[in-house]
């Protein structure tokens, strides 16, 4: 009895809190990519139901009707085949999968993270370097850089170019949609757009050691004028040269975001090149040989 009560209690808490479950992540989209992904999510769910629901309906009926204790039920131990049923159970899933395949082909192309988002405004170009355990954002056109916070104007497409200084990581702002891996010595692309102003959590989703859980950043979608002001403000900060960068690249977490007032155009490419040519052990992001890994 006690257990039952406990279970009810837990279930009640669950129900009460479940109101919140659609309020985070891509099911509460703040941009067109996440919105399209949400639509895909429900669309695929519905189509799949065509195959699943009959099963859920039939299962209890079959169990009830053909239970051993039921008297006078039909019993045909040698019944093993029916062309009609067989065609249905192969045919229906095949049709559904064909429909879903057509959908996947289209959606994968329209939602390709490499595909620029159409719009009247030119995309804002932001370069991203994943470090252990922080995120560096370089604005090559505005010539500023920030750590653990990224700002962009609402309604303007953002073109992220990403790489990693250390191990593979994955860049994601759940409420804006797609994630993409960042890989050392390689560059990946991601196009996102925020259609609602706000502060969104961004994170690494690929485990990379001790402070993985704390490797979060803030994505700020702000108005055009605010963005201009933001850039201006940051331009007064000290420059990001290779030396400052090497300090950042050491394994650490930062308690506060950092900003840099000027960056060279080439820094991002220099980082990519350096990772490709210098053994990782000689770079600041390596684990110290005596420390425990991870």
């Amino acid at each position, binding site marked *: 009895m006690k257990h039952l009560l406990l279970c009810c209690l837990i279930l009640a808490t669950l129900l009460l809190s479940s109101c919140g479950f659609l309020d985070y992540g891509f099911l509460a989209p703040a941009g067109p990519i996440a919105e399209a992904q949400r639509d895909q999510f429900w669309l695929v769910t519905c189509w799949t139901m065509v195959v699943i629901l009959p099963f859920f309906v039939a299962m209890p009926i079959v169990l009830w009707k053909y239970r051993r204790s039921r008297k006078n039920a039909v019993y045909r131990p040698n019944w093993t085949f029916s062309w009609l049923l067989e065609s249905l159970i192969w045919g229906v899933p095949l049709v559904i999968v064909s429909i879903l395949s057509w959908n996947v082909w289209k959606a994968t192309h329209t939602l390709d993270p490499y595909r620029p988002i159409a719009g009247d405004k030119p995309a804002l170009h932001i370069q991203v370097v994943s470090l252990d355990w922080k995120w560096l954002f370089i604005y090559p056109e505005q010539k500023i850089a920030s750590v653990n916070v990224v700002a962009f104007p609402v309604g303007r497409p953002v073109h992220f170019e990403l790489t990693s200084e250390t191990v593979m990581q994955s860049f994601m702002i759940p409420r804006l949609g*797609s*994630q993409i891996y960042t890989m050392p010595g390689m560059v990946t692309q991601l196009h996102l757009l925020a259609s609602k102003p706000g502060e969104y959590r961004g994170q690494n989703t690929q485990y990379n050691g001790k402070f993985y859980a704390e490797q979060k950043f803030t994505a700020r979608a702000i108005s055009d004028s605010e963005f201009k002001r933001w850039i201006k403000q940051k331009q007064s900060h000290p420059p990001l040269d290779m030396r400052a960068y090497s300090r950042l690249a050491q394994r650490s977490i930062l308690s506060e975001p950092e900003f840099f007032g000027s960056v060279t155009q080439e820094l991002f490419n220099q980082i990519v090149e350096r990772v490709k040519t210098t053994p990782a052990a000689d770079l600041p992001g390596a684990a110290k040989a005596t420390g425990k890994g991870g």
Partner: protein
Amino acid sequence: MTGEPLNYFWLGKLSLESLPFVEFIKTPNSSTAIAAFAAAAVIGGAIGIVVLLTLFGKWRVFWREWLTTLDAKKIGIMYIVLALVMLIRAVIEAAFMRAQQMLAVNREGPLSAEHFGELFTTHGTIMIFFMAMPFLIGLINVVMPLQIGARDVKFPLLNAISLALTAAGAVLVMISLVIGEFSTGGWSGYPPFTELAFNPGAGVDYWIWAVTLSSIGNTLTGINFAVTIYKLRAPGMTWFRMPLFSWTALCTSILIIFAMMPLTVATLMLALDRYAGFHFFTNALGGNMMNYANLFWLFGHPEVYIVILPAFGVFSEVFSTFSGKRLYGYHSLVFATIAITVLSFGVWLHHFFTMGQSANLNAAFGIATMLIGVPTGVKVYDWLLTMVRGRVRFTTPMLFSIMFAITFVIGGLSGVLLANPPIDFAVHNSLFLVAHFHNMLIPGTLFGMFAAYNVWFPKMFGFRLSEKWGRISFWFWSFGFYLAFMPLYALGLMGAMRRTVQWFEPQYLPWLLVAFSGAVLISLGLISQVIQLWVSIRNRDDLRAPGGDPWDGRSLEWSVSAPPPEYNFAVIPEVHDRDAFTWMKQHGISYTAPNEYQDIPMPKNSVVAPLIGFLATMLGFALTWHIWWLTIVSFLVILGTVIARSFCRDTEKIIPASQVRQEHEQWLARVKGLIPTARADETTSENQGLAEVAS
């Protein structure tokens, strides 16, 4: 944890700090205390086994009847014992992870980040390589030769060596609790994280050698099973008379043969990077970790079908046996199995849609992935239709199978969602994925193995398992599963990522609490299974089923005594029908003595396998800690053993016809004395393993 080496020549990188006890004394906190406790448990367990064997004077029996035996049934049982022990460890680890995540919302939990990293890595590695694989391989060893009417597998010694290599890997994972640490790189061990520059400790090396040893063992097993099924089927057993479990055993073996090698290659290449300065997967100098991702998942995706196909086979047998009916859609099920086998090699890319390849490629692999859903869906419906017009008996194995079918379909839905690249871009690496694969693996693989354990246990040991405790364990596992994993779907959709030691989102808390309560129920389920075994052994006299056919079985394994004789069949049976034993029962030719018995050659015991197992453990340990002298010695002795054995001609013993006759006639006489059981009394002590023949 690496301190000053004690003596590099003799002990390699080993240092005092490699011991968790020393670590605990140096920095006492909850995390190191748990580590020290786990180490103590391993040492205590090992000492306990030694003491018990000595107290009861069982060393000789243990050596003669078990360690050196080449009998597939006993090898299978040892595999399953290994799997159960490792299952207990991995479930405890899972409960700790659930506790940690529940306690670590906006504050630090009891475990350190590294410790948590080791936990998900060992949990995943153990569950796949040292729980699921040994369980299903053990089961195939026990059932398949009997089911196809063979006396043994084709290569009995190879079989024992495979077990020894798998056990060596498992022992390495156990040793890592006591000496040093384990990898934090997850069960997939992705470089560059697992490269020397980022993980210089011994943990990754433990992982590499444990996985490498087990993958080699598995490859040998795959070859062994496939050859057995091709070559040793009883006369009359054509392909389409072969029971479905054996079909899935064949398909799994083929998958193993082709899928294990990419894994062995990947881990060995990673080892070359770490030990010899190669640059396969490093960041610089031409290395590229994307090659690892491809190699790993070229193994990893077929692997999920390796662990699920035998369970599909089990469900096919269970649905048909416990509905008292022939399998519906046998050909459909066979072709679906084959289709899955083939297709499963063409979908590996869905594990990294987010790696930046072109939309064409992602779309193609997404579609291929959904295609696998078709034969899988067909199977589920075939099982449902197997029950239609049957007489369904809700025994423990049947309950597990029904719960499997219902739950698996939900997992199928999340699978179709994940196969869609745009959706995957939003939930990749999240707890939604964790929920999905547990949703496939627990009802699929694990419930399948539990069902099989309940079905074939009386065949292996001659007495049934307690039905009451079986049911209790079933209910705990089922409710536990739903409570533990459904919340993870929601959490994943809310942006919660896997492998996370600490949360900063208070809204996750209620879901994490429910998930933890599920883990508690699951643990109770596991405890009920321990009790079930205990109670059944105590009451074994009430549960005996010497007739060997407690469930009105349909395939050949039920036609022999329980436990079966070493040589399985006094005379190799002739197969006339798909449900070979049912046919025999209906034609009144079951339990008949043949006109003539013959001498049966069987393999002699051999010390080769335990020796290789011991040496392989040494080799893995020595490599992990860079103890080169031991590496060279153990490797050379393994090589020498194998070569020496190949010159040994005296490997068979003859079981004389007279002995076979005597044993068989004794059993037949015993069966004559049994009262046939009606299905209604199946779970009572009436059931002594002789089924009433339905008219």
